[in-house]
């Protein structure tokens, strides 16, 4: 059986009336790590949000084009529907939600799952405990309002924790490696590798080469001025590190 794909076909995206993405097309495979690089403001985060269905962005597509997940057109699906179909976005700067704890959020996720072989609640909680331990997340953090007064490292770890718990088909990491210390970076890289082992497709948006010390990248996409300007291999990273994005 073929593995599900995340396909993007000729997408144009607008924030209010300003066009941000121009005719984006690419295909992501499960089990592969794709790195998305590009200068600030090039549209990387916008692409991540567009894939997840952020209503802030308007999508205009040509006939029969759009975003297709596992053969299903999700171009105009709501974010919760996309999540249920196996998409996950790890936010660059996740918003705080006062009074809603990490635990409550995970609990709500659990109850909204509609898979045939749902694990029991106690297994689910046991998994939360063991993954938290692995990521060195303090148990008290889980009872606090999500992302409210969390440190940079805590935020990233909580995003990764959710990805590991929710086991989607594709995870988009929007700068998961930004602003974290070396210990946290290693833990995060470990988590990404684990996801890959479980055959989850990974789209990694990053600005720094630090994380490449720990993970093997299958493919590199470069976005500039809202367009995909390069679709290459790991070698492209070295070039970018040397020369920056000037050539794009």
């Amino acid at each position, binding site marked *: 059986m073929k593995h599900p794909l995340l396909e993007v076909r000729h997408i144009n995206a607008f924030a209010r009336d300003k066009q941000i993405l121009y005719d984006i097309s690419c295909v992501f495979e499960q089990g592969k790590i794709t790195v998305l690089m590009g200068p600030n403001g090039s549209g990387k985060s916008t692409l991540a949000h567009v894939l997840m269905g952020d209503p802030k962005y308007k999508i205009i597509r040509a006939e029969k084009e759009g975003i297709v997940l596992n053969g299903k057109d999700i171009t105009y699906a709501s974010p*919760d529907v996309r999540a249920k179909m196996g998409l996950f976005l790890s936010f660059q700067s996740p*918003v705080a939600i006062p009074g809603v704890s990490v635990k409550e*959020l995970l609990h709500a*996720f659990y109850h*909204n799952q509609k898979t045939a072989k749902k694990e029991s609640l106690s297994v689910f909680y046991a998994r939360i405990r063991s993954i938290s331990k692995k990521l060195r997340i303090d148990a008290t953090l889980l009872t606090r309002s999500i992302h409210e007064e969390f440190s940079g490292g805590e935020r990233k770890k909580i995003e990764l924790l959710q990805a590991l718990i*929710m086991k989607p088909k594709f995870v988009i990491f929007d700068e998961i490696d930004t602003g974290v210390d070396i210990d946290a970076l290693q833990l995060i890289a470990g988590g990404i590798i684990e996801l890959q082992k479980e055959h989850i497709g990974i789209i990694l948006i990053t600005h720094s080469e630090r994380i490449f010390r720990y993970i093997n990248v299958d493919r590199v996409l470069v976005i500039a001025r809202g367009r995909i300007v390069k679709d290459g291999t790991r070698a492209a990273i070295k070039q970018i590190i040397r020369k920056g994005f000037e050539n794009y």
Partner: protein
Amino acid sequence: MIKKNSIPGQNVYGFHTKETSVYKAGKGLDRSVVEEISKQKNEPKWMQQFRLDSFELFLKKPMPSWGPDLSGIDLNTLCYYLKPVKNIQSKWKNLPKSILETYERIGVPEAEKKFLSGVSAQYESEVVYKSIQKTLSKKGVIFVSMDDGLKQYPEIIKHYLGSIIPPQDNKFAALNSSVWSGGTLLYVPKNVKVDLPLQAYFRINAENLGQFERTLIIADEGSFVHYIEGCTAPIYSTDSLHAGVVEVFVKKGARVRYSTVQNWSTNVYNLVTKRAKVEEEGVMEWVDGNIGSKLTMKYPSTILAGYKARGEVLSVSYAGKNQLQDTGAKMIHLAPDTTSRIIAKSICQKGGRASFRGYVRIGKNAKNAKSSVSCQSLLLDKTSRADTYPSMEILNHEVEATHEATVSRIEDDQLFYLQSRGIPKDMAESMIVNGFIEPIVKELPLEYAVELNKLIAFQMEDRVG
């Protein structure tokens, strides 16, 4: 079948079917009605006089014009007293369908449901009440209806009634003082701590939660009690006006917590006067939830009369379609080292409106007084509205007083975040709302907290759909 024009039981919360016409009987208020009420109740002469004097004040007092529009209240068409009728019970099936559905959907506790249904209610509540009574009376706690209280402990009532909220306080306090019926008398002796929250609905039978209930709570030195008024089930009423008066006396070193979950049906004007007087090192806490009613005007007040007295108001309101929640709090600091805290949260949706009125007065003698007021509103759509009317009067310089007010909307980013975790939009909205009121809800006993959350979620869903 309930016969037409019969009085379908003044029992429980005054449920009745549409075709019955209780409130049409004995409309309007004059001196003779007040005299009749007193006579029916076999009251002592002084109480009758108190009622009649109050009635005169009621006539003289103008309608309050400083706040919400009260022109929808027609005082001449109200029925001011219904003699409790025994042996007529409202039946579960006679309740309006919408109310029944609401019970089912918010999962009113079985005991409360049966009680509210009026079927097994009187029996069951009496059983529960009697067992509570037994424990309480061993400790010397008095927990009776005001009407029974007047018969059994007239000296207590004569001493305290109207001493914090005199009839001349406002038009509706005068009205209540002249026609009051039902309510609670609660006395806790020195150093007695009542562990269980005392819930009014277990005490009440016939004339519970009447239109004009009157409650008196006296916590003697070093005592503690938590009193809960109302219940989270919607209270259906064809009456258009409810004007209660509550007076709380917190003696030296005592602590009283008074929790309310107000859920009148949305045709009701709910105008309530509540005030507490706190002596040295005493603590008064009001936890006030307002979900129902067409218009509520309620500003629990605390007079901090003794050294180191403390007052707190935690208030949460929900205003949906055609609702105005005009709530707030007053803190009057009269003694040194007194502290007060007001935390108010409101949620408005579908054109609902919430107003917060906070008044803090720190008198000349209240050196080192501390006061903080925080008021936050959450608007769920663009048609709703929240206003804040803070006011502070500070008459000495050694004071610490803070005030903050914010109005916010549910952020699209918050909804997107939760939805991206597989949570549908409506559930995400209610999670954010519940998170918003969480600091207050967690102060309620667990079952009430759970229900309040469910209730608000239900109201939101109902009004969206």
